[in-house]
Every structure is written in C-alpha cells, then in structure tokens.
C-alpha cells in the first residue's frame, strides 16, 4: 500500500504533467491560428489556378495529344503514394490516421498485383510505415526545424515527383494528407496528383460564352506550364492543410490530456484525504485503547 508521501509525490507529478499539456494546448492553439491564416491566404491562388485549368482542360478535345500530366501515360502499373505527415507526435491519431489510409491503399494495390512506391514527407509517416512497407519507401523528405512552410518547400517536393515521373518511375501518383475540416475534425484524404484530377468548372455555360480567351504562346504550352505548376500548388495546399490539421489535432489531444490529468488529480486527492483520515483515526484508536488498558 502506498504511503502518504508516495501519494503526495504522485499528485505533484500529475499536476506537473497537467501544466505541460495545458501549455502545449495553448501553443497549438496559437500555431493553429497562424496555420489557418496561411491556408486561407493560399486559397485564392489555388482557386484561380483551378479555374483556368478547368477552362483549358475542357478545351482539349483530342485526348491523344493532351499532355501526359493531364491524361496519364496510359499505364496503371506503378503507383506512387506521397504520404504527408507531421514532424512531431503528441497530436492524437493525426499521423497514424494518414498512415493507416495510405497503408490500406498500398495493401490493396499490392494485392491487385501493382507495384507500390512510397514517398514520405515528414518524419512520423516514415517511422510509421517503415515497419511493414519499409522496402517500398523510395524517397523521404523531412522538414525538421522548419518553422514556416513556404512555397519553395512544396516546389522541392513537386520537382522530385516530376523528375521521377519523367524518368518513368511511376504511372500514377496520389497524395495523402489530412484535410482540415475544423479544429476537432481532420479527415485523412487521398488526392490524385498525376494524372491530374481537374475539377469540373462551375457555371461553364454562363462563363464559357463570355470568356473566350486567347492563349499565348499557345493553348498546349500554357496548359503544359500550368499542369507542372499545378503539382506544386496541390502539394503546397496539402502541406498547409496538414499543418493546420496537425495543430488542430494536437490541440484537442492536449485538451483531452489536460482534462484527464485534472480528473486524475481529483481522484488521487480524494484517495489521499481518505488515507490521511484513516491514518489519523487509526492513531486515535491506538491512543485511546492504550489509555483504556491502563
């Protein structure tokens, strides 16, 4: 049975833990706001890009001469999964949820006889997938020590992916990241990168009549240029969504931890007080019965 001193120590240590989780929660909340702002600020660019791309893609009538980034290279054998996770843990199921989604997909593809290659972005994803899919990991990028993500990071990833595609290392690329729904909800998402998934242009009938664009140098060249750029934009979007999701997940995980620690402190304090009273009562009984015996 634990002594009073042991219990006091225990309570003190849980209190210290609560302080740490509380601090982490507040840090995550502050970072979340910044990450959300960054994600929001990046939205106009992506939206315009989507708009122009959808417009252009609908014009490409002849599928045979269309750029390979748009229609694919016609094969479906080698799949590249780009798994984007966080650099750090302690954020609930954030990392493992993304890894799980990618793992299920990888196993499905392997079962279907396809070749699976994995590129991990972020240390935690690599750690998670290394155990069973380690031999499939062909490339890993870590962002350790980088405070603010910017577009050049996304470009770096995109250039690696494009280089691999040009070298014929894979046929289909899919991006795995966590979509930021709200502070408490993050959804692991798969997004097909190559061949590009072009969003259906909205209200095309209205817009199409009004805007018949000229293209310079030519439609094909503009489209080709845009498609390469689109890869980095999508990667960048994934990175930002991921950053916001990570902080959101960490915030709610730490909130839970803080609450659990509080509950634990309450329980321990009650136990401690009971034990203290029991000890006092026991001592009194000993004194009284000692006095009576005289």
């Amino acid at each position: 049975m634990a002594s009073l001193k042991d219990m006091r120590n225990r309570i003190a240590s849980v209190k210290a833990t609560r302080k740490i989780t509380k601090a982490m929660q507040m840090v995550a909340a502050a970072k979340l706001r910044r990450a959300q702002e960054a994600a929001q600020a990046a939205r106009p660019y992506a939206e315009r890009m989507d708009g122009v791309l959808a417009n252009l893609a609908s014009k490409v009538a002849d599928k045979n001469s269309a750029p390979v980034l748009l229609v694919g290279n016609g094969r479906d054998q080698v799949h590249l999964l780009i798994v984007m996770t966080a650099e750090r843990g302690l954020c609930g199921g954030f990392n493992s949820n993304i890894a799980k989604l990618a793992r299920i997909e990888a196993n499905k593809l392997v079962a279907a006889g396809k070749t699976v290659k994995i590129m991990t972005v972020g240390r935690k994803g690599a750690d998670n997938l290394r155990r069973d899919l380690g031999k499939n990991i062909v490339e890993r990028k870590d962002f350790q020590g980088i405070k603010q993500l910017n577009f050049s990071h996304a470009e770096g990833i995109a250039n690696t992916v494009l280089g691999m595609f040009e070298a014929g290392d894979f046929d289909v690329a899919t991006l795995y990241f966590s979509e930021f729904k709200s502070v408490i909800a993050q959804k692991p998402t798969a997004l097909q990168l190559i061949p590009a998934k072009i969003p259906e242009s909205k209200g095309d009938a209205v817009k199409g009549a009004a805007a018949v664009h000229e293209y310079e140098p030519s439609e094909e060249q503009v489209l080709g240029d845009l498609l390469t750029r689109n890869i980095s934009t999508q990667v960048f979007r994934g990175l930002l969504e991921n950053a916001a999701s990570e902080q959101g997940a960490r915030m709610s995980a730490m909130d839970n931890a803080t609450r659990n620690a509080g509950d634990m402190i309450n329980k321990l304090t009650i136990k401690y007080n009971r034990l203290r009273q029991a000890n006092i009562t026991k001592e009194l009984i000993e004194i009284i019965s000692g006095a009576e015996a005289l």
Partner: protein
Amino acid sequence: MAGTFKFELVSPERVLMSVDADQVVVPGADGDFAVLAGHAPFITTLRPGVLDVTSGGSKRRVLVKSGFAEVDPTRLTILAQSAFDVDELTPSVIASELKTAEADLASAKDDAARSAADALISELRRLGPKAA
C-alpha cells in the same frame, strides 16, 4: 477606353496586391503588353520581368519570377510564383536572387529553363544599380 479595372497579384502564399488600376504593363512570354480596361480575354505565361502598375496617378513596379496572367475586360489576375516590390529590393536581396538564378542557369536542362534563368539574370542586373 477610359476607366479602371481590377488588378490582382496573387502568389501561392497570399494575395500580394489588389487594386483598381489604370494600366498595367505585363512581361508576357512572347513580349511585353499593356493592359487597359476593356482588354480582350487573354491568357499567357510570363517571363521574369517587371510589372508596371499605374493606379490613380501612383506607380508601382513589381518584379515577378514566372507565372501567368489572366486578362478579362474587367479584370487582370497575375498568378506569380514569387514577386518583389522593386522599391523594396535591397542590393543584398538582388545579390542572393542573382546567385540562385545563376545556379539555375548552370543546372538548366532545357532551353526554356535556360532562357528563363537568363532573362531573370539580365532583369536583376538592370535593377541592381538603381536599387543600390
């Protein structure tokens, strides 16, 4: 046609500029062109160069490194990979940009990349002494 049009300069990270402009000179891939209100719809890629924005009497010059422009009769949207306000360009920034551009030129694989890097270098050289 007189009047202003909506001009937006958007980088992947944020909206850099959103003003009603009178005239913008854009360094298009096939040559510079000026956009006034009522310009015909037009999409082009950009080469590295300087955007000349005139709005309500004030002028701003912005250096853009590749991107593309979407022109509508009432709107001009420039999606730029990266952009610097020329007035805020310090010699040290120019020097570091020159260095990366030269590295790009050295490692450029095809003609398009080479000419883009080359254009950026000459543009930076031109801006260099004035900003210093």
